[in-house]
């Protein structure tokens, strides 16, 4: 498994990227005083430490120091190098002092270093992929498990409990709309919340009078939801939902990707739960009076995890690709975000800037390839 090393390198770059590529030097001597800007920056931000004015005003690369020790790449992803504006290729004659401060992957149109942006891209891809997979995993396992475990006919309620459940669901919508229309702290909203909570307590703790006869088709509802989301192609879904957030930030994008991606996980979990719930050991567990949650959590889910890791790997890859699409199209990404996709965006206008396409694209390819390879390896292992 050689792709393991790619993951190690990516993880290292994602975590320590800011210490590898940063305009702030490790150490510098300015006007006779010693500073450690890279490590002091967070303290200065919190107001615990003071810096000379020049540090806060100008850009670091233009400051004159008596002595300094730079990071490996002396540019932050956002640093604008005014000496190398306008798409300097890696092989061009660059207007830099030394070999150390050369732009090894060139610069983009406004003079930002491509290499340090490329390193930032690892963090972007990793965080978008990881967070969206986690959220999609939680959603998918929960809803898919519900649908698979109860199916259409196993979740039965007595009549009055079903009525209370119905009121609870409608009441939740009503309460939320009331809160948005008036004010979350206003009295009626709080009254309604209290009533809702009381009803919920009634639902949970009061005995079900009479025989549980009403079957709630949980599988039907969730299946409908899955079908509806799957009917819309992923990118279209993303592009249609993005304008809802007026100024989308990265978390919005992560959430939207998760909303798209949970259906695949839910399908798998549903099918597996559906198969496992009738096996003998589950029936035995039920005879031992283990509650439903523990049956699902401790006895069914561990058996599904093997195939879940595979789909997590593929979902991770899918999330990275979707994020790259968004950055490339320039829609929805918050302005100033630097990721592989947004680096490639400039190629759309100037196709001749090959270095803006080659390096980020190679990184996307490598991450997709390694994730898919990992999924495949897991698949063969689990068979």
């Amino acid at each position: 498994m050689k792709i393991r090393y790619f993951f190690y390198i990516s993880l290292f770059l994602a975590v320590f990227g800011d210490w590898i590529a940063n305009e702030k030097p490790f150490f510098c001597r300015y006007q006779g005083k010693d500073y450690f800007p890279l490590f002091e920056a967070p303290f200065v931000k919190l107001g615990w430490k003071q810096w000379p004015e020049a540090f806060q005003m100008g850009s670091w690369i233009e400051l004159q120091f008596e002595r300094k020790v730079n990071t490996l790449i002396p540019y932050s992803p956002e640093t604008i190098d005014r000496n190398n504006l306008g798409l300097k290729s890696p092989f061009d004659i660059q207007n830099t002092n030394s070999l150390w401060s050369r732009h090894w992957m060139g610069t983009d149109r406004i003079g930002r270093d491509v290499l340090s942006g490329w390193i930032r891209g690892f963090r972007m891809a990793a965080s978008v992929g990881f967070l969206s997979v986690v959220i999609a995993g939680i959603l998918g396992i929960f809803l898919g498990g519900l649908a698979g475990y109860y199916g259409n006919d196993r979740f039965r309620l007595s009549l009055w409990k079903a009525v209370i459940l119905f009121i609870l669901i409608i009441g939740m919508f009503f309460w939320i709309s009331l809160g948005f229309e008036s004010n979350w702290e206003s009295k009626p909203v709080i009254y309604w919340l209290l009533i809702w909570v009381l009803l919920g307590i009634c639902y949970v703790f009061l005995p079900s009078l009479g025989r549980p006869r009403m079957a709630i088709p949980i599988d039907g509802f969730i299946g409908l939801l899955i079908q509806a989301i799957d009917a819309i192609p992923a990118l279209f879904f993303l592009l249609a939902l993005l304008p809802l957030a007026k100024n989308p930030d990265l978390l919005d994008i992560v959430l939207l990707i998760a909303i798209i991606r949970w259906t695949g996980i839910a399908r798998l979990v549903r099918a597996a739960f559906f198969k496992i719930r009738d096996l003998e050991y589950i029936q035995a567990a039920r005879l031992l009076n283990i509650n439903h949650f523990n049956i699902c959590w401790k006895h069914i889910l561990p058996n599904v995890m093997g195939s879940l890791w595979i789909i997590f790997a593929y979902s991770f890859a899918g999330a990275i690709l979707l994020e790259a699409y968004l950055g490339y199209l320039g829609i929805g990404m918050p302005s100033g975000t630097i990721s592989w996709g947004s680096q490639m965006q400039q190629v759309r206008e100037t196709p001749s800037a090959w270095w803006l396409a080659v390096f980020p694209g190679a990184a996307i390819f490598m991450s997709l390839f390694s994730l898919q390879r990992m999924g495949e390896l897991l698949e063969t292992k689990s068979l």
Partner: protein
Amino acid sequence: MLTYLSKRISTLILSLWFISICLFYLQKNVAGDIVLLQSKARSNGSFYIHPLAAEKVYGAEAVRLNLHKPLFYFSLKSALFPDTFYRIQYPEAIKIQKKLLFQTGNWSLVQSYYQSLSSFYEKVSQLENKRLSIFWKERLQKIAYLDDLTAINANLSVSKEMERPFDAEIRKVKGIINQLSKCSPSFFNFFPVPKWYGFENQYHEWFVKIISGDFGTSTRDGRLVKDKLKEAIPWTLWVNGLAIGFAYLFSFPMGILMALMPKSIWTKWLNHFLLALYALPAFWIGSLLLFQATLPGGGFSFFSISGWTFYQQNGGFVNQPVPFLLQLSLPVFCMTYGLAAYLTAYMQSSFQKVLKEPYILYARTKGISQFRLYFRHVLPNALLPQIVFIAGVIPALITGSVVIEVIFNIPGMGRLLIDSILSQDWSTVYTFVLLVSCLTALGLIVSDILLVISDPRIRFSSTKNEGS
């Protein structure tokens, strides 16, 4: 089989209906105030109405655009809202009246407060004295945006000289405010009351229009959405159709060959290569190819970057088939290779799976010819999963073709979508998304039908609850 299919189709239609509701609400929420936008566009951006005179101007415009109806078939609102609350059109007025309503809980008083303010404004606007009328207009505008009763009262009291011409009106408004400040909502005012509006609502009209093929006009350039789609669809069909065709053409023989020699070193390497090919992002390869095509001596002389409009105007395939296909070659290549790689691996694995079945062993022992074994007994069974796969491919392809069309500037559906989003033409965007999801759903149904026809196991076991 029929029960299975009918169940499947009915749930699909239900989910499409669900999607259409969601998209309608999205459109309403995202698009912003269409009336204001259009009025602004018509008066070159300098559109202003006094909040108290707005209801008339705005209401008329809203009726013209069919926005004066309730949003949906029913609603669930607090009891303190009147039946006809949706008739108020001006958004600011809705906001303020809602706030007053939540504070006081008395609709008739709020209504009469607003009416008395409006009549006050009318009287002010008839006034000859310019200084006075400007002063009161500004003052009333300020008051109309206030929801704090004491602040309203304070704003109404000015110098005697200013108040004199409108003594009666001010007294009336102050009286109503006095009454309002005594009111407070009781708990039962917030009881949810369901209301049924019937079929005279905005969603119903929108939906019926779309069902009957009238997609409306674009809010940006006023062109029919239908015309825009008609121009765009052939391009997307060309690119996607060619990509699917080539991918299957490549992957079937390749997959079968690889399945027949599982131990060859070629197969092993090809498998690695295919996985890498599948992971290659098409938009990356696309941009690199485009870079190569822009080089003067790059070897892509057959591809002209600005050539699409030429083919768009001159009939494309019909008039110049060869240059047209050459022009399409780069985007089609970008879309084909990933799909082909995936399909080859898929074909290979399904072929191998069938080869391991016991009935193949039996056929071998019976001594039938290799050719007959592979093409009569293995291939039909190996093709089965491929059929189902086509439907799953289509949405992924449409997603991929968005980016490819943007890169190569093809005036297809994806480019139309991106352009509409960038120019905030939301009616086009959401109609479009609905259409694409309908197409996808149709593809899913078709693949289901094909599957049911080809696989008797599904045909006969369909009455049971399907597990996967």
